[in-house]
């Protein structure tokens, strides 16, 4: 390293030192410490006592761990593909040269900047079984068949689908990224496809999709990571729709007990920080594995990476 390079290194480190200290103190240390605590009987207030793999062993036998994992995978399994389809569909519509396109883009993007608590309160009313907009729309359609809309958040069978539907409200961010991707598809490819007699579906399947595949993969993986960490909406809405005081247990019947909610109540209500740390690491491994699988699938036979 030359003298000039050393000087540059010192300057660089100097300018980034605050960030490095912050990262080390508030991210790196907690990450490493929680790995240690995951092998301890630790309540945050008493000294940790090493208990080896006990927390991990208990997790495997904990019915709620599996239930919360199932609930989370159910949510992710529905919300990620649906969200991808809706965001991509909207982006394609808004990529067309229609009048007032900017206004539509703004309108579809706006929900994604509504604070989560505000949107949760709004959707609580939309999903109200008796007065909600959703059933106001569904009931006239279902009435000829002698059916009615469900109680949504108050019904264990419909509470998760309700949250999936709500998640579609926030696809604005993904939509904007898709729009950027769509605008980068070379127009000559479409022209060539049209000359070759390709239909609209064939143009989408063989031109649009392969070109924006990295964007789809990026959005899907980000959505997957976000879905695996679902917390605020479910936490707020399950309590508000079902009463039950301060239980924060994914009511009714733990149908919306998602992984992060169970982790939170284990850590901050039961004061089992060691167990919660083990849960956090398991979630990290599951999310990493799913992300790896998603990345592999999206790559297909191509050599490019994300």
């Amino acid at each position, binding site marked *: 390293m030359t003298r000039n390079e050393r000087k540059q290194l010192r300057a660089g480190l100097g300018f980034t030192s605050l960030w490095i200290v912050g990262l080390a103190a508030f991210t790196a240390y907690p990450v490493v410490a929680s790995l240690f605590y995951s092998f301890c009987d630790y309540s945050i207030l*008493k000294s940790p006592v090493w208990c080896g793999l006990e927390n991990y062993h208990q997790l495997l036998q904990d*019915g709620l761990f599996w239930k919360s994992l199932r609930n989370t995978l159910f949510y992710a399994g529905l919300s990620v593909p649906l969200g991808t389809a809706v965001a991509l569909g909207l982006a394609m519509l808004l990529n067309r040269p229609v009048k007032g396109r900017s206004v539509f883009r703004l309108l579809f993007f706006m929900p994604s900047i509504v604070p989560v608590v505000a949107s949760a309160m709004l959707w609580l009313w939309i999903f109200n*079984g008796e007065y*909600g907009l959703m059933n106001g729309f569904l009931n006239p359609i279902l009435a000829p068949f002698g059916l009615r809309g469900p*109680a949504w958040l108050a019904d264990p069978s419909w509470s998760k689908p309700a949250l999936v539907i709500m998640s579609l409200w926030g696809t604005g961010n993904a939509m904007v990224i898709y729009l950027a991707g769509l605008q980068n598809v070379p127009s000559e490819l479409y022209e060539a496809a049209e000359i070759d007699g390709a239909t609209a579906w064939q143009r989408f399947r063989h031109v649009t999709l392969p070109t924006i595949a990295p964007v789809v993969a990026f959005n899907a993986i980000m959505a997957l990571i976000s879905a695996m960490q679902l917390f605020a909406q479910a936490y707020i809405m399950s309590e*508000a729709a079902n009463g*039950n005081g301060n239980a924060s*247990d994914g009511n*009714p*019947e733990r149908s919306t007990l998602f992984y992060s909610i169970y982790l939170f109540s284990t850590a901050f209500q039961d004061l089992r920080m060691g167990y919660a740390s083990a849960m956090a690491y398991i979630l990290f491994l599951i999310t990493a594995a799913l992300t790896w699988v998603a990345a592999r699938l999206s790559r297909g036979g191509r050599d490019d990476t994300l």
Partner: protein
Amino acid sequence: MTYWEKWVGFEGQAVQTVVDRFNRSQSRVFVDYYATSQIDRKTLVATAGGDPPDIAGLHEQNIATFADAEALLPLDGFIRAEGMSNEEWLARYYPVYARICSHGGHVYGGISTPAVMALYWNKTLFREAGLDPDRPPRTLAEFNDFSRRLTKRDPVTGRLTQVGFLPQDPGWWPWIFCRWFGGKLYDGRDITLATDPRNVAAFAWIQSFTKYYGLDDVKRLSSEFGPWASPSAPFFTGKIAMVFQGVFYDNYIRQYKPGLDYGVGPWPEAVPGITDFAMAEADVLTIPRGARHPREAWEFIKYVNSANAKAETFDEMSGAELLDFLQVKISPLKVWSPFFANHNTHPYIGMMRRLASGPNATSVPDIGIWQEYYREVISAFDKVRLLDATPEEALDYSQARLESSWKRYRRSLERHGQWAALGEAPPK
């Protein structure tokens, strides 16, 4: 000295008034009151971080968990310094509140605001159903009968428009039905949720309401309920005729349904011979471990847990009575001053006092895994009321989970050298 407390609104104003009165009463200690949401979690994190408030106004269910986690300072030494034993100090409270203050043979808190739950009924709906509006149900059989007679359906659609009682409203204390039926949740050593047949009977009773009304009808009617503290709360809109609610409910009736013609009475007799059953709860003043001014904190706790028994005017009132008078609640202390007893604006203060002072008043079990226990009871309650499990199935599942949790919790206490001391403490 910093004091974190959960109250806002007029109840927060009442706390501030008491704090101001305390600050004026002496010149050595000045209390700063901070209204704090999610106080238990924030106190926990602040205590772990070594920067807790001097006083934390926690919930009674926090006492056992926080004490076992060594988050609270025992008050025994301060009480001794006052020339009293723990028993003498606690004897000043009604027994149910004395039990709330202590855990494992130590006193960990003083009462700030006590509550007692009673039966509230809508007299107008009683009249419409041909019932005597001044005579609440006295036995469980009468309660069930009244509930059916107070239930109405739309004559055309058959839809449920009014129910006599619904166990999930407000749904905060489903465990209390077990205690009401004479069941125990914890016998001082073991979890008895599913092993006590009286708990199973209570859950069967809970389920009987859904079976009688019809699950879909209940879901539809419940969707019409607004939040409990709003004008659209079912008791205020006349959709539910009877609820079990706290002493504080009168404040909300005044605010959201002024003029509501209602009565307050004891819980009907579910176990023959057990009259004046009541559920009590309380907020507690505690000193987190690591507080900078524990001695001064004790001075404030002592002030709020004492009263001028001779007060004949508002200005002469102090401590517990001043706070509870302003919050329109009962005092947890056995001795009430003439002014507090005679001028409390709660229309049923005498009934509330009778219930709180009785031998059959009960509160949450003194067990460190109560938060987990509570969640299990809520889960079983949901399964049963939604007809997804029989009472036996739901309680057996919860029992198995809780037994495992209790075993693990005890093992953790043993690891930290605490179980021996707790195990020797006499059950409350």
